């Protein structure tokens, strides 16, 4: 059982507010902008694989008044699994990591990620690392019903959503240069960084 990506992202969109910064990465950075726009959205492409969680952690530590949601893929996370340990060690209670687990490197054509072969359960992984909240969802309705409670629970949070590959039409999006988008984010955050 798995969820369409757009359906999996919907509960996050419905519950984000003006004190929530959403960082998308890789596949989700292509889908999210076609579903919603907000001054506190940052689509981290082009990026370094696995870079979104540390980037989000840095903002979370800087801005405890905001809830930071990082949406990343399982392929990216697998390249930087230690970043989950760093998040817990840094006690970033205002950070939520959402893993879209589709088992493939979607952007490069659908090759299998080793974590799928190994049957990694990110919810269990998160619990073993020490995330106060760590959950996995495969079913749309269960995720939709649980989302509000999970997002309001003690952080940092790790949420794994088992999803289907995105539609080919979702894999193309036109965005401004990332340095421009980062400068816009800095304006929204009222910081002088770019």
């Amino acid at each position: 059982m798995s969820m369409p990506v757009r359906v999996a992202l919907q509960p996050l969109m419905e519950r984000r507010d003006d004190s929530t910064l959403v960082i998308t990465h890789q596949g989700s950075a292509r889908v999210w902008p076609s579903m919603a726009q907000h001054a506190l959205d940052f689509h981290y492409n082009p990026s370094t694989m696995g870079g979104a969680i540390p980037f989000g952690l840095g903002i979370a530590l800087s801005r405890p008044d905001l809830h930071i949601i990082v949406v990343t893929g399982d392929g990216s996370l697998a390249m930087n699994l230690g970043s989950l340990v760093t998040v817990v060690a840094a006690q970033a209670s205002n950070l939520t990591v959402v893993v879209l687990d589709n088992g493939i490197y979607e952007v490069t054509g659908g090759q299998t990620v080793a974590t799928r072969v190994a049957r990694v359960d990110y919810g269990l992984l998160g619990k073993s690392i020490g995330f106060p909240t760590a959950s996995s969802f495969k079913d749309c309705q269960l995720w939709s019903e649980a989302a509000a409670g999970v997002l309001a629970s003690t952080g940092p949070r790790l949420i794994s959503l088992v999803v289907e590959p995105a539609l080919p039409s979702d894999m193309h999006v036109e965005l401004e240069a990332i340095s421009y988008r980062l400068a816009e984010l800095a304006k929204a955050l009222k910081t002088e960084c770019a």
Partner: protein
Amino acid sequence: MIFNGEQMVTECQGLGITHIVWVPDSVIGKWEQSFVASSLHLLRVCREGEAWPLAAGLITGGQRPLVMMQSTGFFESGDALRNVVYDLKLPVFAIVGARNWFQQQGLDSARDFCLPMLQAWDLDYCIIETESERSLLSQHYVHCQSAGKAGVVLLGE
């Protein structure tokens, strides 16, 4: 040791550094207790590739991080560095410990690649090899921050 822990804390505080983002080595690692005892926030990452985007997030959030790692970690984390410096265009600054810098006849190839790698990434760097050169750290930091560009201090080990 070119800097002891107290001296490094003083340097960082004088520059307005808020966070140290690091993977320690046997030289840099001796500063740990001084950082812990100071007002600086010490962030321990598991791999050097985390350090650059973490520093980028801190800068975006209005902080002034200083990245610290050994040269080997600098090599390994190149793509993360590339993204932060050349895509995000953020002025990250780092102290990179040059492993076996003073062992010119050694068997460690890490020494040989320090300068070529810094040059390959087109980073503005300076080298500190003696105690008399300590002031280069603050000078180079101010220079790079004023110019809005990334910079590295290569610290001989």
